[in-house]
């Protein structure tokens, strides 16, 4: 699929000399849905343009940009120092474009009496020093720690934002393979605690206040909600204003783009005033 689209793009590129009408994106599975929705919308308005979006994870996105196999790398985190260094050594100039913000609400069973926790308490629960809800003001019930699998960007973000570099998650923690599965497990399990992307939290689970702040669009934007992150698209060098890449990334600052981002469940970048 991807290959055939690229080939189609190449053929079209030969026919219309110099016209820039193909764009290849690779990277995060979190940013992927935004890029895909943008691509769909952009291609509908500009027939003849080919945009392909692959979702191979943030790390592979960075690698694809380094190897020149994509024009834009989607990342749900900033570039690591090692990645930046590798790119600079190759003569690339990675430029970050923030396209949206995401928060990771900490979710529990709706019947849970606990309203909120501090970051320290959450860290205690996930590393195993707090094992019962009564220790944090709830009923006498064992805490069931549920995490995303260790390969997901969501896991990496949570680990970095909440647990810190040296913390190890308690070995009795359960691991599930998707945001949807996390929500499903928390709905069913009275003692459960977990985390998921903002777009996955609905009425069937309860999102906790962290340090007294509930996860909402406003609290993400004014940076009072502590477990939030920026979602990036990286290009090699600042793209020219009339280039396809610039127009594509620019979508995130249009009304249509903001609507798409909100629909998927992320927080759009607000208009500058």
């Amino acid at each position: 699929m991807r290959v055939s689209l690229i080939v189609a793009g190449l053929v079209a590129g030969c026919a219309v000399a110099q016209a820039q009408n193909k764009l290849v994106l690779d990277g995060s599975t979190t940013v992927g849905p935004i890029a895909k929705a943008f691509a769909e919308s952009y291609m509908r308005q500009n027939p003849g343009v080919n945009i392909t979006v692959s979702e191979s994870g943030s790390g592979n996105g960075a690698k694809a940009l380094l190897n020149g196999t994509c024009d834009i790398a989607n990342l749900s985190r900033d570039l690591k120092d090692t990645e930046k260094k590798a790119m600079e050594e190759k003569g690339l100039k990675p430029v970050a474009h923030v396209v949206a913000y995401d928060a990771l609400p900490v979710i529990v069973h709706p019947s849970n009496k606990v309203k909120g926790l501090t970051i320290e308490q959450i860290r205690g629960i996930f590393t195993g020093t707090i094992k019962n809800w009564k220790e944090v003001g709830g009923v006498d019930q064992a805490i069931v720690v549920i995490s995303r699998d260790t390969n997901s960007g969501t896991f990496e973000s949570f680990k970095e934002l909440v647990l810190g570099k040296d913390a190890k998650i308690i070995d009795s923690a359960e691991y599930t393979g998707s945001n949807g599965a996390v929500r499903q497990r928390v709905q069913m399990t009275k003692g459960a605690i977990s985390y998921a992307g903002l777009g996955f939290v609905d009425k069937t689970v309860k999102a906790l206040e962290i340090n007294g702040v509930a996860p909402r669009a406003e609290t993400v934007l004014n940076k009072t909600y502590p477990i939030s992150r920026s979602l990036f698209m990286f290009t090699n060098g600042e793209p020219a204003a009339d280039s396809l890449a610039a127009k594509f990334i620019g979508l995130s600052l249009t009304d249509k783009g903001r609507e798409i981002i909100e629909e998927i469940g992320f927080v759009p970048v607000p208009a500058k005033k």
Partner: protein
Amino acid sequence: MKGSEHLILSAAEKLQRKILGLLGRSLLFAVTSVAALSVLAILFFIARDAWPFFRDKGVAAFFFSTAWYPAHQPPEFGAAAIFVGSLLVTLTAVALAVPPGVLAAICMSDILPFSVRQVLKPVVEMLAAIPSVVYGFFALTVLAPFLQDSGKWLPGGFEISSGVNALNASVILGVMALPTIVSVSEDALQAAGRELREGSYALGATRAETLVKVVLPAAVSGVFSAVLLGIMRAMGETMVVWMASGNAAQIPKPWYNLLQPVRTLTATIAGDMGEADQMTGSAHYHVLFAMGLSLLVISFLCNLAGEWIVTRQRKRLRGG
């Protein structure tokens, strides 16, 4: 050949036949080799990618440490808890599936009327046709909440805080292994033959005596193969354990506590393959191959042991 001259081949014809014969044989040999070679090729490629892990990280930590932190800096790849998880889930599943499976096979082959058996056997075999992800879905949405709620009914009334655990995965794996066990054992019991049963009746044995003392011993190697196939099925299953076992890389405390989540080899490979880094050849990538190699070696040893027991049994039965 004497007397009939046209049957005597010329040297050229002889050569032609020889070549044709050789060609035919080598073609057949090549086709047969493909099956054997593909197994060897799989073994080779898995071992090739597992080797860098053992070379860099050693063998001891992999087999004896329980510290499984693949995403930590620096990462730790102690798989002991994962081996225990695989073993625990497999053995429990087999322990749950073998008694009812073998009894059902006996019932079908020797007790129920033939017409009932003709209906029942395909129904049991239908269990094998259900995709494993459907079993996993059932485990997650039906069995897990049921287990959570049923804790208070058990003697002692203790609480099952998470329904996704070793018991859940074992029960589902047991159900999945059931059709193999029932079907293969039933075939073995049938193969014991009518003559054997009639001979036994003729000597004055009752139906129960015939069943227990004649038919079962005669079919025991087949029943054993059925159990072995069931073990393989349970150990190799991936989707169900990934969804139903909880994937916690711990040895339950105490080790036989089936109500705690565990992690298995297959689920670890499936769950971590997605982003384990192939291009840079990271340790996380190679450790999954080390696990695959371990699985392969374990099932190979199981097969070998099974083969040995079956041949020994056959010899014993023949009075050899």
